[in-house]
Structures are given as C-alpha cells and as structure tokens.
C-alpha cells in the first residue's frame, strides 16, 4: 500500500556543508602534485586543422604537455565505446580524435601546466592553422532539408488519429500559427569540471560533474579500455546541472587522458564561455493547426515540429506527445523532423521536449480560446483529457482540475475581464494569463543498500546524484520513515560509482525510482531483522509474519500490540552482530504499464508591460502542482520555485544567439546570455494539491524537477497577450519585440 500523507518539511541534511563552504564540488579537490589543464577550442565551425603550433607553450618552464590529435594516446575506435548512457543515436563526438572540425568551439588541445595561470597563458601561445569549409548553422535556411531520423531518442511520432486535415478544414474556428524558441544553454552556476586523482598503481579516482557517476565510469572504461576496478567516479556535490551533466562532457575525457599519460593528478575546469561549447536545448519551430467547433470542442490538432540536431548524432526529445496527454481530440497528427546543423549535439535541458512542446501548445490553445470567444480556463476544462490519448491509457491519478480550481482561487482569476488590453496601472498594461502542463512520472529500476549498525545508525546508499534536487534529504527521510528512525540517525550516500546502481539523475525520476528502492531496501532490512529477532530466546515476536509488525520509534513491534516489541539495536546485540545489511533491486510493478503516469500543473501569471519602454515584469505567479505525495514540502517548494524562475528565463530572456557568419554562439558569457536575476522575480506562490496515487510507485511520489517549469513560459506569453492584445510567438519576448510588434 502506498504511503499517503505528505512527508515532513525538513531542512536539507547537506545544508550545513553548503552554507559553510565545506561542500566540495568536482573542481575543488586538491591532491598533491595536482596539474591544471586548460582547453583550447576551435575558432571555425567546419573544416580541418592543418597545423597546431605548440612549441612556444612547451618551451615555458612549468608547462608539461600540450595534447592535440597528433600526440594523443591510442583510443578506442568503435562508436559503442564512446556511447554513454544518454547518447542519442549516431556517432558520438571524440575529442582529439583526428584533425576534423565538426563544430565551433570544438576542443582541439589541452595545455597542462603546474598552475592554472600558467596553463592559461601557455594556451594563449598556441596557434592553429585551419582549412575552412563552408558551415551550415542557419536553422531557417536548413529547414528545407529537414529529415526524419532513423531512430528517435525519445518518442517517435505515431500514426494520425481520425482525419485531422479534413476535420481542420471543416471546423468553425481554426488557428494556424508557428511558434519558435532559440537554442538555450543550461548554465549551472558551477562550470563543468573534472579532477582526476592518479594513483601509483595506475588506478584513478575521478571527481566529475555528472548526474550519474556510473555514466562517467562506463564512458571512461569504454574510451580508455579501463577495467571497472581501475576507475571510480565520485560526485558528492553537483553545483546544478539541469541536464548538462547527463552526458560526460569533454573535460572528463581530457583530464583523464592527461592523468593517464602524465601519470599525475590533473584537473580541468571549463570557463564560462566554454559552457557554450557543448549541449544545449535545441531550437525548435512548431507549426500548430488547431480547430474547434462553435461551442469550443477541439476538432483537430496538428503539430509539426522541426528541431535542431548536430551532423553526427540525431538528438530528439519528447516535444510531440503533449497535445494528446493534456487534451481530448478525435483528429490529430503529430510530426517531428530534425534539422542537421554544424553544431554540437543538443542535450536534454530542464524539461526537455516538454518545455518546448507545451510552450507552443499552450500559446496556441490560448489563441484558439479567444477565437471561440471563451475564457481560456473554461476552454481548457471543456477539452480536459480524462485519459491519455497518446498512449491510450487511463491516468494513474490526475488532479489537474483541482490545480485549476485552487490556482484560480488563489490568483483571483474570476475577476479577470476576458477582453485583452483592459487593465492598466500608470504606464503599465496589466495582463493575466494561464497555461497547464504535465510531465512523465515513471519509476525506473534502481538498486539500494541499507545497513543498520549496532549503534542505531542507518546508512543507505545508491549511485544516484543530488544536483540541488534534495536527493540526500528526501532519501534520508524515506529511509527514516520506513525504518521508524529519526532523520538524524540516517545517512544517505550517493554520487559514487561503487554504490548500488541507480538510473541517471534526471527527468524527475529520482524521487520515484531511487525513493522506491530505498524504501524496499529498508523493508528488506526489516524482514531480516524480524528473522533475527525471532532467533532470540523468549522473543516477543516469535512466529509473527512481517506484515503484522511495524518499525516505529527504533523498534520492531507488533502492530496490534505495540508492547510486544524489540529495539532494532537490541536485535543486533543479542545476535552478536555489528551490523546488518540488505540490498535490493527494485523494479516498477507490471501494473504501471497499464497506466499513463504524469504529474500536472496549472500556472497563473500576472505581467505588467510598459509599451513605451518595451519592458515586461512578471509581478505575480501561482503554480498549482499535482505531483503525488510530496516527500518534503520544503525542498519540493524550492524545486517548483526554481522551475518558475526558469520559465521566466525561457519566456523573456534566454537566447543563445548564433552568428551564422562565424558559426558560433556569439553571446557566450553571462553578460550576453541573460538568465533571471533576483530583481526579475516578484511574488511567487506554490500550491501542492492533494493527490493520492498507489500505482506510480510504492512511495506515491511523482518527482517535481520539470513539472514546475513546463507551463510557466506559455502562461507568461499568454499574460502578455492579455495585457497588450498582441501575440508573441517567438521566444524570448524581449524589449525589441514588444517595441516592434504593432499587430493587434
């Protein structure tokens, strides 16, 4: 049976380390004799290197080596060896493999020196001659060459439902519009970094910025032909990632190569501009054709997506399922083509596919609501999906209606005049908009181990990560609750490739997957404890089956008669054991296959637009979430707030600007690439509606990393329409666009 009531709001168990500066991130380990590597990147987007002149750098006292494709050690040859656990179909990029340049800012050399400053200076002395070829980085121009990939990394477009073209043609209300957003970069505040500790016996311990230590370990084993016991990867603290740490990035390869070759410990940290030199959220163009009957019933939904990819891997994400996860419509067609460019392969970025697809869908739905002449909230409720049409399955739970109700009430939606451009205060037009969203909440297989020591301390472990998501804390809570212990008695270990296997920390799957494994491991430990308890002479628990006992207050006791009890530590004592361990391999139940498992959100936004200045301020947001059982309302709220901040970034600020002439992102620092700052956020409200779900997983939790984000950007854009009466279909809605747009 699933646990039902929400968990307790607790402070983060790693909070003390984080506020005192004791938490150490990947680039902060300092083994003796540490060398520093600085990466040199290509300045062209396509062609080949004719010559790299490294002599001047090598002449400097304190510079140990400049690695290039010419002097790198022998490496694995097959694609498979380079394919990490998150690799899309294709041929993964191989750093320093040969002289070919596949994208701008490709890493082409690593300068290794005794100090960071010296390595950086030496890198400035390296010169490169190229033979340039004409690159293609202009998405709009390449649209005509869009193709259907052999394999979709995420969801492949299914066959159409009904007759969408005819239904569209025959319907009373029709909307057809194209929505776009640019490439965006993750920009965790901690730049990507790897520190490789080299040991005399040739083994290495690697501190890497990664959302799954096992992925880096697998990659290094494949590329450098290392045995599993020769490489251990650790990532106890990750300074944000948002998807950028799902794949091992090139600093890991370079630092490891240098350490193995120089037989020394090496660290490589990327600079902020270099954070633009690998994966990003792919730019998309989405054409939506929606139609509705006179009374506002959806008649047709046609979504045509074009998404960016590299020339060497076919990256795709789930942009297309959302119309039929969120709405009910008999005639629909969904298509998704890729546009190959001379760029690095895109990479999952917070709510990959969902953020893009739901943005376009929810803006289009808003437009259609106005054509029909309905309040956008009523229009959505009228077309509410009672089951998931995309997979043709019932929802395991769906309290989205309650999200709408509670969100609308808190926001004061009923006072909203439907007519746009009707609210004003001083110079500012005021607009209220909404959108709804969803995110998958499936459980994945995961392993965990629980060890109880005779002093009463419980240690639980799994090779997952905490990228700020609160994994340390919520897993400790799940363990404490299952074992009937105090939170302070529990330690959770993660970020270590030697721990029991866990899936990559991403896609909001950790709470559900690892949480379930932790619970099962603790229950398994409970069963073992019961067996031991029954071996004790005069045991009060003789012949009692496990389902009749509970673990509470540090005891194993009979549910119906709690006086029949044994302290957990006593059980170990009496059996002369220092500790007892249980390991579990937890699998999703088969029943889950019969259901569509999603979390949902409804977002209400107020914006204030100054048309003379072109500014948009998001003055108020309410985000109502149905995310199953909330394990820790405190960390959960932070996750949702973070998602809302990201929505502001996507709607109004974030854009990696491609200079088509140089084939390079031109605004490559945090002055050029704007992310929201403190002053960009005002009143943010989060509501968790009650949602019981005993199908999703044994702990009833759905994961919150993405669902707090997906509907925010469209709600903001819809609010801008309500303020100004003008539609903005190309993100981000920056000052220039507000000033320019005079189409009412």
């Amino acid at each position, binding site marked *: 049976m699933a646990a039902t009531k929400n968990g307790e709001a607790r402070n983060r168990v790693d909070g003390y380390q984080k*506020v005192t500066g004791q938490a150490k991130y990947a680039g902060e380990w300092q083994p003796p004799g540490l060398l520093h590597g600085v990466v040199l990147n290509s300045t062209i987007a396509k062609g080949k290197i004719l010559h790299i002149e490294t002599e001047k750098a090598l002449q400097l006292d304190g510079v140990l080596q400049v690695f290039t494709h010419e002097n790198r050690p022998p490496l694995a040859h097959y694609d498979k060896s380079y394919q990490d656990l998150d690799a899309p179909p294709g041929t993964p990029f191989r750093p320093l493999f040969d002289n070919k340049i596949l994208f701008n800012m490709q890493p082409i050399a690593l300068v290794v020196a005794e100090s960071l400053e010296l390595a950086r200076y030496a890198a400035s002395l390296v010169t490169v001659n190229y033979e340039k070829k004409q690159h293609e980085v202009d998405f709009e121009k390449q649209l005509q060459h869009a193709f259907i990939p052999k394999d979709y990394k995420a969801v492949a477009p299914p066959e159409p439902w009904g007759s969408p073209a005819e239904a569209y043609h025959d319907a009373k209300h029709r909307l057809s519009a194209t929505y776009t957003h640019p490439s965006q970069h993750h920009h965790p505040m901690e730049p990507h970094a790897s520190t490789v500790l080299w040991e005399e016996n040739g083994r290495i311990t690697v501190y890497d910025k990664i959302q799954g230590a096992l992925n880096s370990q697998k990659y290094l084993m494949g590329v450098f032909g290392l045995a599993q016991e020769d490489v251990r990867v650790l990532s106890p603290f*990750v300074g944000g990632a948002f998807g950028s740490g799902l794949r091992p990035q090139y600093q890991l390869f370079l630092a490891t190569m240098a350490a193995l070759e120089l037989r020394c410990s090496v660290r490589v940290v990327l600079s902020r501009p270099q954070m633009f030199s690998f994966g990003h959220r792919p730019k998309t163009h989405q054409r939506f054709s929606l139609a509705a009957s006179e009374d506002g019933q959806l008649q047709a939904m046609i979504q045509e997506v074009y998404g960016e990819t590299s020339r060497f891997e076919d990256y795709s994400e789930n942009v297309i399922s959302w119309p039929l996860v969120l709405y009910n419509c008999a005639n629909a067609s969904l298509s998704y083509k890729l546009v190959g460019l001379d760029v690095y392969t895109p990479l999952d970025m917070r709510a990959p596919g969902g953020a893009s697809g739901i943005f376009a869908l929810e803006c289009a739905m808003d437009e259609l609501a106005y054509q029909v002449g309905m309040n956008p909230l009523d229009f959505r409720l009228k077309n509410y999906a009672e089951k998931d049409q995309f997979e043709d399955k019932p929802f395991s739970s769906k309290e989205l209606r309650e999200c709408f109700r509670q969100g609308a009430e808190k926001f004061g939606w009923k006072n909203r005049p439907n007519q746009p451009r009707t609210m004003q205060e001083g110079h500012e037009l005021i607009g209220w908009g909404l959108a709804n969203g969803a995110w998958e909440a499936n459980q994945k297989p995961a392993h965990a181990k629980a060890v109880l020591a005779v002093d009463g301390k419980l240690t639980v472990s799994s090779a997952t990560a905490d990228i700020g998501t609160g994994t340390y804390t919520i897993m400790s809570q799940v363990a404490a609750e299952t074992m009937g212990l105090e939170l302070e008695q529990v330690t959770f270990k993660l970020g270590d490739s030697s721990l029991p296997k866990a899936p990559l920390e991403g896609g909001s799957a950790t709470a559900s997957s690892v949480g379930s494994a932790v619970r099962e491991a603790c229950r398994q430990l409970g069963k073992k404890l019961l067996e031991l308890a029954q071996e004790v002479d005069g045991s009060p628990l003789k012949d009692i089956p496990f389902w009749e006992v509970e673990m509470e207050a540090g005891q194993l006791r009979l549910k119906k008669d709690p006086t029949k009890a044994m302290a957990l530590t006593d059980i170990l004592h009496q059996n002369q054991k220092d500790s007892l361990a249980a390991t579990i391999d937890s699998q999703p139940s088969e029943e889950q296959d019969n259901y569509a498992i999603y979390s949902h959100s409804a977002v209400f936004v107020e914006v204030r637009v100054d048309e003379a200045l072109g500014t948009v301020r998001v003055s108020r947001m309410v985000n109502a979430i149905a995310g199953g059982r909330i394990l820790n309302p405190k960390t959960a709220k932070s996750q949702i707030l973070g998602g809302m901040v990201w929505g502001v970034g996507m709607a109004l600020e974030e854009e990696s600007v491609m200079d088509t002439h140089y084939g390079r992102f031109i605004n490559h620092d945090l002055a050029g690439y704007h992310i929201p700052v403190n*002053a960009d956020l005002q009143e943010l409200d989060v509501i968790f509606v009650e949602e019981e779900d005993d199908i999703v997983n044994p702990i009833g939790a759905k994961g919150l990393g993405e669902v707090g984000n997906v509907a925010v950007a469209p709600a903001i854009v819809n609010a801008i329409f309500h303020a100004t009466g003008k539609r903005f279909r190309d993100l981000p809605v920056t000052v220039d666009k507000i000033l320019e747009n005079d189409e009412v």
Partner: protein
Amino acid sequence: MEKNTPSPIQKESIMLTINGTVHRLEVEVWTTLLDLLRERLKLTGTKKGCDQGQCGACTVLLDGQRINSCLTLAVMHDGSEITTIEGLAQNGKLNPVQQAFIDRDAFQCGYCTPGQICSAIGLIQEGKAKTKAEVRELMSGNLCRCGAYTHITEVVLEALERSRT
C-alpha cells in the same frame, strides 16, 4: 624537452588577514584574489562561476565590503582583511544569515550560496537596502541558476529587520 623560457611572471610579497589569520604570501602578480583563495589557500568555499565578474559566486568581504574576488588581483590587497564563507561561523555557531539560509531553504545546489551569503552580509552592512524591491535589486549581482531568489530575499529582509532592532 629542454625548457628555455622561465615563467614570465614575477612575484610580490603581501600580507593578508584572512578569516582572522595573518598570511604572509609570495604571490605571482597575475593571480586573482579568487584563485589565491581557492588554489593556494585551499579555501574553496568561495566559488568560481564565471571568472568575469558576471555572477557573484566569488563574493567575499574585503575590509567589510562585498567584492567579486575574481575581478581583482591578490597583489592589490596587501594589508587587507578578508572574510570568506569559511570565516563566518564563530566558535562553531553559524552566522544568523547562514542559519537562515538553511531554515528557509534559500538554496538548492549550493554553488552560489557562499557568494549569496557574503553578499547579503555586505548588503546589510551597507545599510542601503530598505525595501523588498531594493533588496531584490541590490542582490541581483548574485546569480542563482537554481532559482532560490524568493527565499534569499526573505532571508535578507529578515536579517535587515534584525539589524535594525
């Protein structure tokens, strides 16, 4: 290989008081205060988010004022007093701002946090911020990609309140 070019950089002697401890240091003149703290003195609590003065992760208190330590060279601060995140707790007791960051969950990944905390303490000492809007504006030099701003603002307002009473 025969090395024939010595490192092009000269060294200077400086004295810094860091978290109450006096350090006499020979520093290369191209070393930033941030790299001195992190690489040489192993005070990695001060973070490097951009090395370009654009994120605030490297904020420390220099003679009581908040500065971006990546934007200044160590040699420029001979005789100065520096407080980093490692120096805020007194006798094992957290500074109230540190404690409030934990209690209000004003961070997620924690990477911007030392900078936010030093910046918050610097801001309170400046006495410039009075309203919520001013706090938001004057804390905007410290980016937080995890988006903990709402809680950070609450912490600072609460600390301002405390400092007035």
